[in-house]
């Protein structure tokens, strides 16, 4: 059973396309949760958008929050900064996703929405529900492989505990 569904039956989605989108969504969180950060930027198109903003700001039509990257190279810079520059206590994320709803298809670009919950575990074992919210994605499929053209992470809370060092 696929975790990728369409909002209404009129949106065309073959089992192969659903499979490609499902693989992309899973790969994007497993790369982060497993600490394979370098595997994360290649899941985006070269010109892309990745941003994290609050639900309140998103509703108000504001464009950015704590992260705003619009090229894959910027995502790679983020990864090298996490690896070698920024100072923080070691911690890991664990994402749990809800089903992905394809909300539209326009000019070959799928719009999708997926809920997430994210638990952060610190090196000393301290665990917190770090973030809950939704991904608003734009996904393209080329040669059977899906890629993120844009991912807007809308966090339900306006508060971020301590830091958002790793991508959500």
């Amino acid at each position: 059973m696929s975790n990728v569904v369409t909002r209404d039956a009129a949106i065309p989605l073959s089992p192969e396309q659903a499979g490609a989108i499902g693989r992309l969504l899973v790969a994007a969180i497993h790369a982060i949760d497993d600490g394979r950060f370098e595997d994360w930027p290649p899941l985006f198109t070269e010109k892309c958008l990745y941003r994290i903003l609050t639900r309140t700001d998103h509703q108000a039509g504001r464009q950015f929050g704590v992260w705003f990257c619009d090229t894959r190279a910027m995502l790679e810079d983020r990864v090298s900064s996490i690896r070698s520059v920024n100072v923080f206590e070691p911690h890991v994320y664990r994402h749990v996703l809800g089903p992905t709803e394809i909300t539209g298809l326009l000019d070959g670009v799928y719009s999708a929405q997926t809920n997430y919950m994210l638990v952060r575990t610190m090196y000393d074992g301290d665990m917190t529900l770090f973030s809950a919210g939704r991904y608003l994605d734009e996904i393209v499929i080329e040669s059977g492989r899906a890629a993120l053209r844009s991912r807007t992470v809308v966090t339900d809370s306006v508060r971020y505990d301590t830091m958002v060092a790793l991508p959500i």
Partner: protein
Amino acid sequence: MSQAVGTRPIRQMLAWPKEGITRVPLHVFSDPDIYKWEQDLIFRGPTWSFLCLESEIANPGDYITTKVGDTSVIAIRTPEGGVNALVNKCVHKGSILCYDPAGHRKHHDLVCPYHNWVYDLEGKLNAIAFERGIQKKGGMPEDFRKEEHRLKRLRVETISGLVFASFSPAAPPLAEYLGPVMVQHMTRTLHGKPKILGRYSQVMQNNWKLYVENSRDNYHPSLLHAFFSTFKLNRLSAEGGTLQDELSRHHITFTKRHTDAGDAFYDTGMLRAMKTDYGLKDPSLIDQWMEYEDQITNSIQSIFPGFVLQQILNSIGTRQVIPLGANKCELVWTLLGFEEDTEEQTYVRMKQSNLVGPGGLVSMEDGAIGSFVEKGIRGDLDGVAVIEMGGKGVGGMATRATETSVRGFWKFYRELLDV
């Protein structure tokens, strides 16, 4: 209104080391009773606290809710065009009146959700539901005087589109409290009509004063925040210094662009970094334009007790420190642009937002460093912090290798607590 009711006198709890402001007893960062005294003597004392931007409450009846220390406060635009600040607490049972971050009161009143007590925007109690009872039964006693009960009102003043409030009649007028150097810098930084581009809060697992110290500590940035130096971005700025008001209560640190801009080049007014010279794969992150004639590329202005105005390249913003108990605080970041900005300028500000905040490539460490200190001192509260970089006094200095403004903070802190 006091939080310190029932606690020991502050001087019994807090004996300042004889060395003075070069030493800070570590238990000031964790003692819940000292925290309560701070609420009375600092946040409700003769100081000014930031509430919001004027543009957030543009029209009569627009309001926001925020906090001054632990106290919930409403800032509301009056029909006359002024701003009133009222404690968000009904005089009946103590419920908050406004329970959302922002809103609009069409009828220019405030109504308690619990029993519908109605106040005007000056805080005067205008009406009480069932004041005369129902069918002449019940109701308030004959001798109850509505005019004897009103919302507590704060003094309000604005500067460069920023709204400040004070609980205390003893606080000097805002401009005098800030002093001309601080006023000039605020006016300079907020050169247009501010508009909000983004807002979020960063929760810090440390006492509020550890963050305020950090905001005034010129000594740490090049050591703790490695982003600029690792990616060889330092060459864009060189000269720097520290400014204070005459009483050393407030602080500005700044860096100016080096007259030699290195290998960066100008392109239609934009200072554009060349890819070959930097470690960044996409150096457009730090594309900037010289927004200020004074050539200052970075400045952090920290106003006692808990307000920060930032300019990191073209990222302009306010930070509001809100204490959340002795070992926790939050920092509300509001990133700004100006109504006058071009689309390209807004885009530059948007990209540079990556430098600041809890996810900031430059500043994310500030969220963690306070909790590092908190963890370090927890088991060893009888010690003191040693603050001697740049000497033992206060006052502006033509260097960033100094903790003069951290000492300035403790100077005013001690005056207010009389310790």
